[in-house]
Each structure stands twice: as C-alpha cells, then as structure tokens.
C-alpha cells in the first residue's frame, strides 16, 4: 500500500525539482528578449554601427543558432557523464550569465567592452538552454511509470510557457513599482530598474541548484553505467549511424519543425502582431498574452496525459492541422477587432495636444502633435506625429514620424484574449506530448544527444525564426498584413504531411532499452 504512495511522492519531487530549474532557465532566457529594447539603448547604441552589429548578433546568434550547439555539447555530456550533473551545469551557466548581465556597466561607462560582454553572456545563455530541456525531459521520463510518461513529462512542457509568464509578470511589476508616479517609475526602470529581473534570477537559481543537488541520477542511466553500457561517443552514434540518424531526421521533419512554428506563432508572433500590426497599446498587448497563457497552461498537462491513452502522434498532428486551417481567420479577426474603420468615432471628444521643443541655435523646433480619437465602443486611439517645425516656413518635414497606439475596449480586450487562448491551445496540443514522444524514439544511451538536437532545431531555428520571417514577409509584401502567416502555415503543412505519412501513433511501453 505504501509503495505506490512513495512512488507517486518520489516522482512528484522529481518533477518539481526538474521543472523549477527548467522554468528558471526559460525565465532567464526570456527576460533578455522581453527587455531587448531597453538593453539595446544601454549596451548597443544605434549611433555606433559596430555596437548595433553586435546587437543583431546577440539577438540572432544566441536566440537560435547557439541552441542546437548547446544541445550537442550538453547532450553529449549528458550521455557520457549522466543527466543529473549535466542539467545542474546548464542551470549554473544560465543563472550566472543572467545575473552577470544585470551587473555589466553600460556602454557609456566602459565603452565597447559592454556590448561584447553582453554578447558573450547571451551566447552562454543560448548554449545552456540548448542543454537544459533534453536533460530535464529525459530525466523525468526515465523516472516515470510507462503508462503515465506523457502526463509526467508534460509538467516539463509547461515550464517554457510559465517562464514567459513569469518574465512578463516580473518585468511589468518592476516597471510600475519603482516610483509612485507611473511615468517616473517607467523612466527609472529604463535607466537602472531593468537590471532587477536579471539580478533576481540568482536567488531562484541558488534554490534550484540546492534542490537539484539532492536529486539522484536517472535509474535507467545509472543501470547502464553500472553495466558499462553507456555510449563512448554519443555524437557519432547519434548522427553517423543510419538507423539512428533516420529517426533524428524523422523527429525533426515530422514533429518538432511544425511544433516549433505553432508554438512561436501562438506565443510570440501573436503578441508582436497585436502590438505592431494591430497597434494595440504596449501593456495591453502583453497582458492579453499573460491571461491567455494563464488559462491555457493546464492544457499542456491535459494533452500530455491524454497522449498516454490515445498516442502522441495524432494529438500533435491535429494541433498542427487546426493551426494551419484557422491561423488566417484568427489573425484576421485580431486585425478587425482593432480596426478603427469598423468603429464609430466620437469627433466632439477629439483632443489635440501640441508640444514644441526648440533646437539650440537653429530657430527650428521639434514638434510633437498628439491627437486622441475616442470611439463609441470605448476604444481610444492616440496618434503621435513628430516632425521638425522649421523657422523658414517654406520648409516642411518630408516624412514625419507617425505612431499609433490603441487602448481597446474591455469587450475587444477579452475577445483578443479568447483568440490568443485558442492559439495557445494549439501550442498545448503540439507541445504537451512532445517530450514523451521524443524520449520514446531513442535508446537510453544516446537519448539526451539524439532528442536534444531535433528539439532545438525545430524550436530554436524553425520556431525562433517565426517572428523575424513573418515580419520580414510583411515588409516585403506590404499589401497583405497576414502574409507573415504563410511561413508557419507552410512549415507546419510540410511537417503534418511527413508526420502523417511516416510516424507511428504508438506508445513505447519500454524506454529502458
């Protein structure tokens, strides 16, 4: 009677210890992305081309190129020396890099050393993240009972989303708590307060390292080690042996590639689309995502658990299919909700505020005209036009800078939450069962290496590129605001086809081999 209870308690401890560490790693990784604009002004001034170049490298290189390398480096280590010490190492590297970013003096204080240091630390973050996930998923799966592997590993799957939730939450709280006056608080945050979310990370990491140190090695890996059956060269065995390479390629093209784009479209491109294309206010666009994440997160566990009964493949494939079919109407609806042409303006309430700041010695001034438009449904649209008011009246600014920001009504706000929630449900369908799916594809002795690479190419490269490529497509083909969606739809379409044709909806009952 006591044995199953102890077993359940044991696995719960394992899940908690693994998940907390993975969540912290995701949190660390996301705060850099969420604070990219503030970090750019501190470390990568646009006026200096070399610093701007380093900024591009920091965004691109660490975001997706380095992650598959991390998967190779730490995957190999995990198969050579064990899961426990490897993902302990990735946690320490991630935590100390994040903490160190919070300590690096700005460009104005130490010049070029600042962007170089930040770039190096960001690369370390990417490497660590590349090594963490495979370790945590493998570790939990190797402890889980065969019929509940999907359910238990799905807790690891919630961490990426919760890490984003935590990073957005801590950033918003810090941004508003540095001063009673909201504007002053934001100014302080942009000046020095942005360092707080980075520095806070060290406390979370210390606690997590302490918990992980108390964990034991995965029983399956420990058994292999005692029997002397561990791999002597996991990279060679994973990627040069045809029988394993074909499974790595199948995992990538038939599962993780589509899963990655569905994930990044639902959780990242949706927010970027609401903010940059629909022109919804900075904070509203983020809190919409926060609510949607909060409501959708339990579904990772639901679909992970369900995959133990009906198989992993079909849940993931249906998630991709739904995404492909509904992305255009859903994003079209987001666009329509925020479209001022669909609303009745209240012209009598219009407010115009003009500010003129003279430039020294020229007679010219910087003119900022802020116009507030009010609509019958409660939406307020602020149009800010910035140009130069020349002393010579015959001169005008050829292309004034015009910015739009919409504060949407309560009804529209919750409508957007519902749409993003639906897109995150697709994420939970494709992402909830994937850890169990990948673990079951590969043998214990090279599992860490073999599953980490397709996961990080699928998510880091195909997924991570989604917001960039989608945005790029909208700038190339500017007549269609939904054109960016073709990238995730095509990638998910190819993946769906490969998955349906070549994968098998089977649950592997034995991952001990």
């Amino acid at each position, binding site marked *: 009677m006591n044995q199953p209870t102890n077993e359940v308690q044991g696995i719960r401890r394992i899940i908690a210890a693994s998940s907390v560490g993975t969540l912290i790693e995701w949190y660390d990784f996301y705060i850099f992305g969420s604070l990219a604009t503030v970090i750019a002004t501190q470390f990568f001034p646009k006026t200096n*081309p070399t610093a*701007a*170049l380093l900024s*591009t*490298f920091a965004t*691109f*290189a660490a975001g*997706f*190129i380095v992650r598959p390398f991390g998967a190779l480096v730490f995957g190999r280590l995990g198969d050579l020396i064990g899961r426990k010490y490897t993902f302990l190492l990735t946690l320490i590297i991630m935590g100390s890099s994040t903490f160190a970013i919070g300590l690096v003096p700005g460009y104005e204080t130490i010049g070029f050393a600042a962007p170089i240091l930040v770039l190096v630390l960001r690369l370390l973050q990417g490497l660590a993240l590349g090594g963490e996930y495979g370790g945590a998923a493998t570790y939990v799966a190797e402890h889980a009972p065969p019929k509940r592997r999907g359910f238990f590993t799905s807790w690891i799957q919630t961490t990426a989303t919760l890490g984003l939730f935590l990073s957005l939450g801590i950033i918003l709280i810090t941004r508003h708590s540095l001063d009673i006056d909201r504007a002053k608080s934001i100014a302080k945050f942009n000046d020095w307060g942005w360092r707080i979310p980075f520095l806070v990370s060290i406390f979370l990491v210390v606690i997590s390292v302490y918990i992980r140190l108390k964990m034991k090695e995965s029983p399956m890996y420990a058994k292999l080690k005692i029997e002397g059956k561990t791999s002597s060269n996991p990279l060679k*065995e994973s990627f040069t*042996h*045809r*029988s*394993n*390479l*074909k*499974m790595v*390629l*199948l995992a*990538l*093209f038939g599962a993780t590639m589509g899963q990655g784009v569905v994930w990044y479209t639902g959780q990242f491109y949706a927010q970027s689309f609401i903010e940059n294309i629909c022109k919804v206010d900075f904070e509203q666009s983020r809190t919409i995502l926060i609510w949607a994440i909060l409501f959708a997160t339990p579904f990772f566990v639901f679909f992970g658990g369900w995959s133990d009964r009906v198989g992993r493949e079909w849940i993931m494939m249906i998630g991709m299919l739904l995404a492909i079919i509904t992305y255009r109407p859903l994003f079209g609806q987001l666009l329509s909700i925020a479209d001022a042409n669909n609303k009745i303006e209240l012209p009598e309430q219009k407010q115009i505020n003009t500010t003129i700041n003279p430039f020294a010695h020229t007679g010219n001034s910087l003119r900022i005209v802020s116009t507030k438009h009010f609509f019958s449904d409660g939406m307020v649209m602020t149009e800010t036009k910035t140009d130069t008011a020349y002393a010579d009246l015959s001169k005008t600014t050829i292309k004034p800078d015009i910015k739009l920001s919409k504060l949407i009504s309560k009804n529209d706000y919750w409508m957007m939450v519902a749409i993003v929630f639906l897109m995150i449900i697709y994420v939970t369908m494709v992402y909830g069962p994937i850890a169990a799916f990948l673990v079951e594809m*590969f*043998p*214990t*002795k*090279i599992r860490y290496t073999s599953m980490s690479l397709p996961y990080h*190419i699928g998510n880091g*490269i195909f997924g991570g*590129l989604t917001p*960039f*490529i989608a945005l*790029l497509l909208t700038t*190339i083909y500017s007549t269609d605001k939904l054109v960016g969606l073709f990238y995730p739809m095509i990638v998910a379409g*190819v993946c769906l*086809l*490969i998955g349906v*044709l*070549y*994968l*098998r909806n089977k649950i592997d009952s*034995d991952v001990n*081999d």
Partner: protein
Amino acid sequence: MNTTKRIAGILWMIAGPTAIYYLIKTALSEISKKPVIDTKIQWAVFVIVFIPIAIGIVIFGYYAITGEYDRLPESSAEITDQ
C-alpha cells in the same frame, strides 16, 4: 502506404535545393534593395542556418526512397547498430 512513402521521398529530395534556391534569390534581392549591415547579417544567417537543414531533408528524402521508413524500429536494439 510504403509506395506512397517512397514516392514522397522524391518530393523531399527536391524540396531541399528548391528552398535554398529561393532563399538565396530572395536574400540577394533584399540585400540589393537595402544594402546595410543589418540586412546582410539577417539574410546571411538565414542562408547559413538553412543550408544544413536543406541537406537534412535531402537525406531524409533519400532514406524514404530507399525504404528506410517502410518499417519503423520496434525496439532500441534495432537503432543501436554499428
């Protein structure tokens, strides 16, 4: 089903080089439109990152054509060959 899998392999083998051709073509066109360092880096990264992936899908297609996916392994013993 196995015949479909093998025939589709041809499609995957063609998909790799086609994707790279269009990627390079678009990259050159975009760089010539806006020849600043940011554009060059972005497109260079896309091309460098996607070339190995395109090679991967060609290999995948080749395996499909040769019948490697006609039957998936039932146990790890079938995967850990030498």
